[in-house]
């Protein structure tokens, strides 16, 4: 018969951020830092399990559509830009690298270095969303929406906008609409950062300025994506006649091979592909946004020098989450973009 001491040390539940004694971040109900770390680690892995199953429903819908109506995918593929998708893949992979590196820095107690790596990760996340905004807005311009609103006509090209900000910048109105909220956030974070600097609250100021930089990343992605998009379109319009013909010929061939009526009596529900596309990428983007919030929190804690070799759990756990977001994209990219 043995006994366990359950009344070890009793710490106050609300830890005070300003002193740095050893047991500072050990919650009162854990006996050792290791127990706390192990609990958090298992918790985040289990959370990732729930995330995988959460996305599994979408993958299920995807598999069924792809299995039963492969012709939908062929028709939809012309609207998906492999280059933008590929760039976004690289951006996310790079953010995973900086995240993993930030974990290493936190493990070694290098808070300052970790905060810089986390900032890079945050910016990458925003760049990703900026590129995504260009992709979305381009589809919306072509009337490519979810199944019930899908209304794309072969060969349709929207007129260049002539009025307002959109006209001045030569970009579509839907992209401008998507940029409104990030712009407000960018300005808001900047203002908040300056105010806190004036008030001499360094950590808060650093946090808000970092978040402003992050939102800058969104515009970096959006501008870069749009420049590529414009270039690709003009290439298609000028020298791209050949390519276009080839594509059209390929389509005709495809139609001749499968025949319109062999698998289904009805035109393929191409809109269904985009329903799945929007839900999958939208939900993924939502997870990216969640990751940005969590990363901002980590950034703040790094600037407060919270992490030590025996306490770096939060960086590790957010890192695992971030890698999962990356993992999901690793599958989404070939499934949604690489279709022939």
């Amino acid at each position, binding site marked *: 018969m043995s006994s366990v001491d359950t009344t070890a040390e009793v710490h106050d539940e609300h830890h005070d951020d300003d002193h740095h004694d050893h047991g500072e971040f050990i919650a009162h109900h854990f006996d050792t830092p*290791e127990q706390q*770390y*192990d609990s958090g*680690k*298992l918790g985040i*892995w289990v959370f*990732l*399990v729930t995330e*995988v*199953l959460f996305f*599994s429903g979408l*993958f*299920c819908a995807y598999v*069924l559509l*792809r*299995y*039963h109506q492969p012709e939908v995918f062929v028709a939809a593929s012309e609207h998906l830009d*492999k280059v933008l998708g*590929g760039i976004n893949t*690289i951006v996310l*992979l790079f953010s*995973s*690298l900086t995240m*993993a*590196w930030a*974990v*290493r820095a936190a*493990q*070694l*107690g*290098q*808070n*300052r*270095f970790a905060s810089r790596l986390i900032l890079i990760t945050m910016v990458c996340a925003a760049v990703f969303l900026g590129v995504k905004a260009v992709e979305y807005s381009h589809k919306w311009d072509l*009337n490519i*929406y979810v199944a*019930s*609103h*899908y*209304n794309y*006509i072969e060969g349709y090209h929207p007129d260049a906008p002539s009025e307002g900000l959109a006209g001045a910048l030569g970009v579509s109105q839907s992209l401008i609409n998507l940029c409104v909220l990030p712009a407000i956030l960018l300005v808001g974070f900047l203002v908040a950062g300056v105010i806190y600097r004036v008030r001499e609250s360094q950590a808060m100021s650093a946090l808000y300025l970092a978040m402003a930089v992050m939102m800058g990343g969104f515009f970096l992605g959006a501008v870069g994506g749009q420049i590529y998009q414009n270039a690709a379109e003009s290439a298609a319009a000028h020298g791209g006649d050949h390519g276009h013909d080839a594509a059209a010929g390929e389509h005709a061939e495809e139609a001749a091979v499968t025949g319109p009526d062999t698998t*289904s*009596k*009805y035109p393929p529900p191409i*809109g269904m592909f985009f329903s799945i596309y929007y839900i999958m990428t939208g939900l993924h983007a939502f997870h990216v946004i969640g990751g940005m919030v969590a990363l901002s929190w980590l950034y703040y804690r790094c600037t407060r020098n919270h992490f*030590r*070799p*025996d306490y*770096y759990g939060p960086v590790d756990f957010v*890192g695992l989450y971030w*890698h999962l977001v*990356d*993992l999901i994209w*690793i*599958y989404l*990219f*070939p*499934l949604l973009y*690489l279709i*022939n």
Partner: protein
Amino acid sequence: MNEHEHAHDSHGDHGDLPRYNHPVSVKLLLTVFFCLVGLTILTVVVNGFGLGQLDIWAALLIASVKAAIVCLFFMHMFWEKGFNIIAFISSLFFVTLFIGLTLMDTRAYRDSQDKFPLDKRPEPTVVRDANS
């Protein structure tokens, strides 16, 4: 905190870290990253070959390799406790079960679904621009 950082950096073997703390070397992280970039380019290139039916399998295979190395090194699974690995991997088993059985079933009744009368399909709800 600065002297702390230097103190840790000077130890190559990290001998004074708690036993649950295994930092991954920068070299390994960079290697993994470049492998991932390489595989991404590879998957785009392979996609260009036009392998037909094999396309999707090739793409999935490459994606799985990428996912595996992200899991192993970025997510520290290589050094992870067995229980956590089993917990995470088991999710894949349940996903397979879910998708597999559902796919098996929808195959059986798909024909009847295609009989849904076309004239009852609603028109798209977006009003098209006048210029199109």
